[in-house]
């Protein structure tokens, strides 16, 4: 016989306004193995938690069920309270009678009360069969791997290293600095990209805690949060052997972005007409020591057409998303052009002007009003050469008229796409991406710098296109997560993981292919399946797959679930 205590929360009027909590308490007092049941206004408050602690001692309870809000809210609270009374925190269960009952059945209080008692009884049945587990403890390697030596990767690496932890920084190319190093000038202050990040590059190169690997990529990854083993290999050499495994505890992905390939932009004449260039080409032309010259004949272009949203916001031919940075860099390029060629004319074809950052709107207004850059709202229909010019046909959707501009140079703001090889890297790291290949964050609102894999974090445009200040902020955010992880004395993990009833395991190996976390293997000597508890995320795939029902999850066993279902009266 177990002695379960049941604690029913009013949650003010949130629960008690609909559910008759005293009726629920009365029903539970009569239920087998329930030694004690009581209600309280706010069980999560300090007096509420004290009430649980005292009841455990006074009534010699060996299990706790709190009927309250969702376990997402206060499971940790109540488990801590249970543990402080000397019990295992894992014999405390939450019956969700708020989100799953009172809030959704306000119109039917009588049935809500019956359902609340039902939900609570199911959790009593679970608690009766709970083992008093203890949290698992794992070792922790306090060294980080940062993948990508652009602005995001350098910033993240520096933050972690400055905090005193060793960092392995891996960059596929032979230099640091990424895309920013290729910019002639950045908005809003036009300072040159290489100058902007020179100090950062020096800091990374000279940092005693940063181990820099240029022309290197990640070959393979094993392990789990706190205990990854990564192998590196020379970049771009498929035949080369991977090196010895390095141990790291956390990983930051900062692989940045690429531009949509110019070769796939036929209707703009990209690749065919020499005076049609990409935004990144134009950055290089702006920075040329010989001054701005157009590629075909080396003359100074007097009329330049900038075309935004080339394959961005274009689900039919390109990508449905907005590349976020093009509106601002186009305005910047047009303004830099006007500085170099004051008597030249710049035109910008746009759909919407997106200048939503600090000082950005003002920057674009100045481009129009002070630099006389002509913004035309519309798409470009055709680009073709004629008499040494590149003619741009487009529509001005504000006047409704067709526009024809014989340009000397056409600059395409091509879509930002995931860095080449991002998908393969994602597979190697077992990290999720979106359909385009940008790495997926754990939650779009509240966990933007975490991947869905524990211990792997995201910085910069690897997650989605973003500009320099947003990248700096995010890289710092990712570093903060690493610092929090490394500050722990040891890593603890939930013990509610899969296990094998070895007497009935036939060693067939179905669980190995079912497990998405590579937590399963066969113990060859004994011929049974085993679980690596550090990798197991208690998803239950092995439980469903096992033909012998030898796979179970601790405190979520088949017996428990069946007993919970049988407790239902509705």
């Amino acid at each position, binding site marked *: 016989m177990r002695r379960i205590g049941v604690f029913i929360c009013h949650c*003010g*009027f949130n629960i008690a306004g609909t559910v008759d909590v005293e009726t629920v308490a009365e029903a539970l007092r009569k239920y087998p193995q329930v030694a004690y049941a009581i209600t309280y*206004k*706010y069980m*999560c*408050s300090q*007096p509420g938690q004290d009430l649980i602690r005292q009841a455990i001692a006074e009534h010699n309870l060996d299990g706790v069920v709190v009927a309250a809000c969702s376990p*997402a*809210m206060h499971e940790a*609270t109540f488990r801590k309270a249970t543990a402080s009374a000397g019990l295992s925190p894992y014999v405390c269960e939450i019956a969700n009678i708020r989100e799953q009952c009172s809030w959704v059945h306000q119109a039917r209080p009588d049935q809500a009360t019956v359902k609340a008692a039902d939900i609570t009884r199911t959790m009593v049945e679970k608690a009766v069969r709970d083992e008093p587990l203890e949290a698992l403890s794992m070792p922790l390697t*306090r060294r980080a791997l940062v993948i990508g030596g652009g602005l995001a990767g350098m910033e993240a690496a520096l*933050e972690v290293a*400055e*905090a*005193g*932890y*060793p960092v392995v920084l891996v960059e596929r190319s032979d230099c640091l600095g990424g895309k920013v190093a290729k910019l002639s000038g950045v908005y809003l*202050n036009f*300072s040159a990209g290489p100058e*902007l990040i020179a100090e950062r590059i020096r800091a990374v190169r000279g940092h005693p805690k940063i181990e820099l690997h240029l022309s290197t990529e990640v070959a393979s990854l094993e392990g789990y949060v706190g205990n990854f083993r990564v192998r590196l290999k020379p970049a771009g050499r498929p035949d080369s052997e991977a090196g010895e495994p390095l141990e790291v505890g956390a990983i930051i992905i900062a692989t940045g972005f690429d531009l949509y390939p110019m070769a796939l932009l036929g209707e703009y004449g990209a690749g065919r007409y020499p005076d049609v260039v990409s935004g990144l080409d134009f950055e290089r032309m702006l920075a040329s020591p010989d001054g701005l010259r157009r590629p075909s004949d080396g003359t100074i272009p007097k009329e330049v057409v900038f075309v935004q949203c080339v394959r961005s916001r274009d*689900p039919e031919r390109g990508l*449905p*998303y*907005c590349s*976020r940075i093009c509106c601002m860099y186009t305005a910047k390029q047009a303004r830099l052009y006007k500085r170099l060629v004051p008597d030249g004319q710049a035109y910008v074809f746009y759909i*919407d*002007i*997106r*200048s*939503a*950052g*600090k*000082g*950005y*709107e*003002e920057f674009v207004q100045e481009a129009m009003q002070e630099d006389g850059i002509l913004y035309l709202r519309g798409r470009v229909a055709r680009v073709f050469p004629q008499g040494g010019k590149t003619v741009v046909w487009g529509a001005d*959707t*504000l006047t409704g008229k067709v526009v024809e501009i014989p340009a000397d140079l056409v600059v395409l703001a091509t879509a930002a796409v995931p860095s080449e090889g991002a998908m393969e890297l994602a597979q190697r790291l077992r990290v999720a991406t979106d359909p385009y290949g940008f790495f997926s*964050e754990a939650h*779009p*609102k*509240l966990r*933007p*710098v975490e991947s869905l894999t524990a211990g792997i974090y995201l910085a910069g445009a690897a*997650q989605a296109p973003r500009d*320099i*200040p*947003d990248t*700096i*902020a995010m890289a*710092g*955010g990712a*570093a*903060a*997560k690493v*610092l*929090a992880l*490394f*500050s722990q*004395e040891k890593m603890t993990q939930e013990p509610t993981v899969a296990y094998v009833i070895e007497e009935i395991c036939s060693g067939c190996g179905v669980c190995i292919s079912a497990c998405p976390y590579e937590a399963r293997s066969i113990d060859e000597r004994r011929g049974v399946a085993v679980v690596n508890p550090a990798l197991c995320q208690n998803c239950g795939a092995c439980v469903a797959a096992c033909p012998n029902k030898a796979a179970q999850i601790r405190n979520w066993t088949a017996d428990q679930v069946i007993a919970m279902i049988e407790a239902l009266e509705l």
Partner: protein
Amino acid sequence: MDGQNGIPRALVIGAGIAGMQAALDIANAGFEVVLVERQPSIGGHMLQLSETFPTLDCAQCILTPRTVEVGQHPRIRLYTYAEVDRVEGKAGRFRVRIRRLPAYVNWDLCTGCGLCQEKCPAKTSSEFEGGVGLRKAIYTLSPQAVPKKPVIDPASCIYFLRGKCRACEKLCPTKAIDFEQRETFVEEEVGAIVVATGFDLYPSAELGEYGAGKIPDVLTGLQFERLLSASGPTAGQILRPSDGRIPKEVVFIQCVRSRDPERGVPYCSRICCMYTAKHATLYKHRVPDGQAYIFYIDIRSAGKNYEEFIRRAMEEDGVLYIRGKVSRVFAQDGKVVVWGADTLSGRPVEIAADLVVLATALVPDPDAHRLAEVLGLELDADGFFREQEANLRPMETDRPGIFLAGAAQSPKDIPDAVAQAGGAAAKVLTLFRKWGGGGPSGR
């Protein structure tokens, strides 16, 4: 745990989503945080939101576990209903004086039972509900408030106004009501400071030509947010204020005082395009036979899955986007008539709407000026806190040891605020670790 060169303990000012994130990131890395919030409870504007773009997650459902985590964190010392009054010293050792406003409730005795709020006879307009709902004179911001302790508002309390009532005092089972309470001051010493004071909305009293404040069926975005919210005054039903009917034609107006250097602010408020699209989408989900119109200048949906969200609003929910400015809003025969121009067709547009929702500009927190003086920081021309350098140092200020997070620096949405708060926390953590604080280092 005192470091060699500074106190490894942080002050975070403001407990909205940015301040909470900064506090959690610092505290979870093993350091103490003093978190000061002017409101009676934490959570900031995000707690007022119904659902969030682009996933339409319920804001309270994702945020309240965070507020609980902050409220119960062993390394976060929370002062709500308090403000930073004086700061002396420099990075490594700031002496901070915190003014605690009188709640007229002894929070040490209060159990948060809620009886006082239930029985209080005085009702007034609720700031949390944006003025579209009521609260009592003794109140918490929401039933899930952290901490779950009420305050008495002397401006609406019958006892404070007329010298009698004291119903809450008589009923309180723990004798926690204290009408004699005065403001108190506490001193804290910290090594670094994060400013996360967020934003406010452009005052709707100054939006005369849109009928705000005069026509009851002209609401601000935040008021509409409360109408959408399941915990709001209408329990999530969209009912227009004038007659409680379901509005069948709703006009949303973007850039109200944003991008408007003549009458408002020159900058873009960054979040309005997306929340307006969300408003229109949620409206269509609740009132499928209704029509939503959005007046815009440019649609700015430059975030992950944002463009796709706008496209769904247009294509799946039939929200009608009209590119143009609104010239006049006036009441006529129970309708709110909106005159505007469609700059794509070049024609004037007239819509007889049942409800008009204004996406008003984001402005700095009204206390930012005072706080900037207290901290010795500079504000930019628009009144937001000025970062040291816009590109590479967006979280740093001109004063070492003081950092910026979230909309205090400039308008930003939730994920950008969370990322920047983490970035500010990283700056603080790096300092603390250099001073020799914190847990084990090396491999």
